């Protein structure tokens, strides 16, 4: 039976199949997709491992193998690359730090070195570049703040200027874009709201205005889109939901309908979750689907922190330990 025909008989999370899908995906190194995705294997590892932890199955992977591979991606500068041999970038540095946090292995890092790499990417106006080549984006502001907060050394950057820059990217619809003047987008909103949350600056957000924009991302099928008049997509379950939770407006959407939409995007036969029902699954959407269900308090999934995108127990362990 093809997976398409079963997708109408949904109802529950096939957690075991997703676990198997994630463990298998790691081994499929022969395919064309794996070559094209080669440069962001660090992100992929973070998505897969976090999903496993949320499903309480992190123990099924070899911790030593993962950690030693992660460390092969670190450069002299302190930053991490998306894979062995690639260049360092802040995007992959966060994923590496998140992976080590999952395994409670942050102690193997030279924290001073990694944090100096991240802090060194702050620009005069408070913004952050992604790497030495100077692309600027509020995604990188979030990443820097998230990383340094995990290391408890936000004092290495100018937080006030970093916040001012993020606030300068706020739009008249209450959302945020990647640079000043850029259109609001749910992924970008997550980054900006997350950075403001971690630094205790959510008072810069117009919660009612942004909350209305975000809750109107829910379309008739129950799924969420990332911008007005766009198609729904499982990955926005994470970006929209986490933002709504951080500003305490998540009750403005219909959670039951969203749960159903995410479950409808599962491949019931082979595991994995796709962007929309009956599309091809991938690890990215599998993670965002499970993380979204966690935010919707779906039974059997650990709680995830809406700002750090790591399990709540991991974050509480880090933050509340003096």
């Amino acid at each position, binding site marked *: 039976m093809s997976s398409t025909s079963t997708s109408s008989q949904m109802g529950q999370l096939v957690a075991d199949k997703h676990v198997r899908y994630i463990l298998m995906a790691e081994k499929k190194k022969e395919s064309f997709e794996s070559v094209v995705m080669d440069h962001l294997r660090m992100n992929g590892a973070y998505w897969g491992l976090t999903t496993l932890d949320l499903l309480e199955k992190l123990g099924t992977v070899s911790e030593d193998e993962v950690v030693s591979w992660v460390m092969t991606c670190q450069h002299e500068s302190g930053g991490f690359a998306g894979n062995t041999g690639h260049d360092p970038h802040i995007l992959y540095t966060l994923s590496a730090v998140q992976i080590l946090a999952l395994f409670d292995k942050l102690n193997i890092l030279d924290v001073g070195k990694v944090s100096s790499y991240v802090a060194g990417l702050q620009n005069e106006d408070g913004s952050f570049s992604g790497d030495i080549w100077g692309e600027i984006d509020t995604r990188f502001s979030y990443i820097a703040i998230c990383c340094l907060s995990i290391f408890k050394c936000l004092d290495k950057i100018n937080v006030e200027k970093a916040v001012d820059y993020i606030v300068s990217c706020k739009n008249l619809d209450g959302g945020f874009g990647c640079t000043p003047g850029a259109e609001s987008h749910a992924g970008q909103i997550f980054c900006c709201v997350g950075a403001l949350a971690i630094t205790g600056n959510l*008072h810069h957000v117009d919660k009612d205005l942004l909350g209305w924009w975000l*809750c109107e991302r829910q379309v008739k099928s129950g799924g969420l889109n990332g911008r007005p008049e766009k198609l729904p997509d499982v990955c926005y379950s994470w970006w929209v939901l986490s933002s709504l939770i*951080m500003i305490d407006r998540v009750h403005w*959407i219909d959670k039951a309908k969203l749960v159903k939409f995410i479950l409808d995007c599962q491949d019931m036969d082979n595991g994995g979750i796709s962007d929309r029902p009956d599309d091809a699954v991938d690890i990215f959407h599998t993670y965002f689907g499970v993380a979204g269900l966690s935010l919707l308090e779906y039974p059997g999934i650990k709680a995830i922190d809406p700002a750090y995108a790591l399990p709540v127990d991991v974050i509480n362990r880090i933050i509340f330990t003096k």
Partner: protein
Amino acid sequence: MHGRPRKAYKPEEEAASAAKAVKPRSLQSQFMSNHHNKIYTKEAIELSTKLLEINPEAYTAWNYRKLAVEDRLSRIESDPDLVKSILDEELVVVESALRQNFKSYGAWHHRKWVLSKGNSSIGNELRLLDKFQRLDSRNFHAWNYRRFVVELTNRSEQDELQYTENMISTDFSNYSAWHNRSVLLSSLLARRADGFMPNEKIPEEYKLVHDAIFTDEDDQSGWFYHLWLLDQTVNVETPLLISSWPSHGSRINLSGAGCLNDSSSKLPTFCFESGSFPLILYFDQDVGGVSSSTVKIDSELKGNEDLVWEPVSKKNSQVSCVWVARLKYMSSEPSFRKEYKVNVRIGNSPGIVSSRGFNFNAPYEFVFTAHVHDTVEESQESIVSWTDGFDIWDAQSKDLNSLVTLDQLNTQMDLKWRQEALAEEIDLFHALSDSKIGKLTLARLLKAEAMISGDAVKGVHYEKIVDLYNDLMALDSPHYQYYKDEHSVALLHKVTSSTESLSRYLFQYKDMNNAVCLRLNNLSLSRIGSVEKLLFVQMLDLSHNELHSTEGLEAMQLLSCINLSHNRIRSFSALDSLRHLKQLRVLDVSHNHIGKHSVDTTRYLCSSPLSNSEWTQDEVGRQMPTLVTKYWDAYFVFRDLNLKQLDIAGNVIAGDEFSSFVIQVVPKLVWLDGQKLRR
């Protein structure tokens, strides 16, 4: 990863995919070798071109090309033609990468990097963009790149505004164009550019956006633009004081902690253990700069020369719409007089500035009388009841009228065009009042009109608004709670719209010197609002509602008792705003949902180490680190409160372990869940 159809697993496809991977894999390994060995020959560069044609997302290959360009440029610096040809080559590679993947961050950035070198002609860029934007008019990379090019070429905002208009007239359902229009227009309006006066331009913009909303009422493209226009119509830039406590002309009774010897008086008396009372200023928007130099106080009360004004907001914010200072009235020296006049003058010297940078420029003055009573008895630690000992307030009483403040109209506001624009919109949207967006917009328009109208209009409008939200809850059930929250706010506007209607909810509590008690219980409120009109309230009964947070209550600085039992509070972090209430002694949060949910929606709205606030470890923190991590929200909220009486029964979290933890965290607690604690 997006939009690929799911297919059943076929072994032959796996083989085909592996075969297809052979060439890019070998390209990639050759490329890596070149990159690591810093080889920038023609062949090596050509190889990276091929790799990027297959995979424009291979960011390391873009980095390599930048290094290669720099290497080549370093050898031929004196020849401008050669420089140009090297850079043009890059533009060609980017263009073909973008054809392959329009959303490649690496490709777009490479193009910016090349153009920033300043040797390429920028003239072609807008033409290229026009082509791309016709293919995908919502692509945000293209729009961002457009803003970059516009800045480089100094193209005027007016020309760009015209471009958005063209895009919109081709297809009104282009949110990206509406967005860019709002950015350009707000800049032009803010600097009052020629032909961009708000009173002329905003009515014109309403007409433009009507086409979008009325053509297809389900299309969201115009919704947010219309809401922004409405905001521009009603909100004035300059901040305004909307209420205060004490209010102008009022007479307040003050005493120290304890009971009065004269129990025959029916007047409420405000008791402050600290011997000082809060002076509260409530502005219509966040302001900074409230200080003893911007607010002048003349009174015979001693020791108030250098008052400290504090924003009622998060620790690291220096702006707030609520500001408070504490005036001393129980000085150590014996007082001969009992009545003191206090005169407050705000904004005579500059310094109060809104968070958007506009000066408070409507100086305001108010006067009140403070009557200081002697206390004879020591304060008793008796339990406060929410059922017995309440008297109804006489609605006609003068005392009530002097307590309740009415909002002050902004006399400086140019009302005429605003009223006309609103009236026209209300007319129009009546025609659309069968649809969701029609009803919602109408409710918002009526609220806006009520804001700039007199009391008579207000009452009628709030009535209509409540009805509209009732309709919306039924019409658009997925967003039920959004309308429910707005409904609660409108209901509270209605309740507080006149002294007469408010008095129905007011009582006095005899056992606490006739404290003013507001009972808003059983109203199915999901949200708190209109607090600026309730600053005089000392006891607040919000039991049997649907509240999940106490946001807003921080302004009610006189509150000493709050009843939140039978609501939907999910965690103690939802009570964060209560930390600002220095008088709070009695709190009932029994029968809520605390401990029931794994997701805490106020986790980051509460000051705690999670939101980067400083944390000094106390005895409890040192002795019970595990419980502090487990009950962190209770720990960080309760240790800032000075509670004597607390009710937490009927929550999932309640139990022996939690009770003994709370008793440690709140050392002054006397009553817990109705039981007197034996310490």
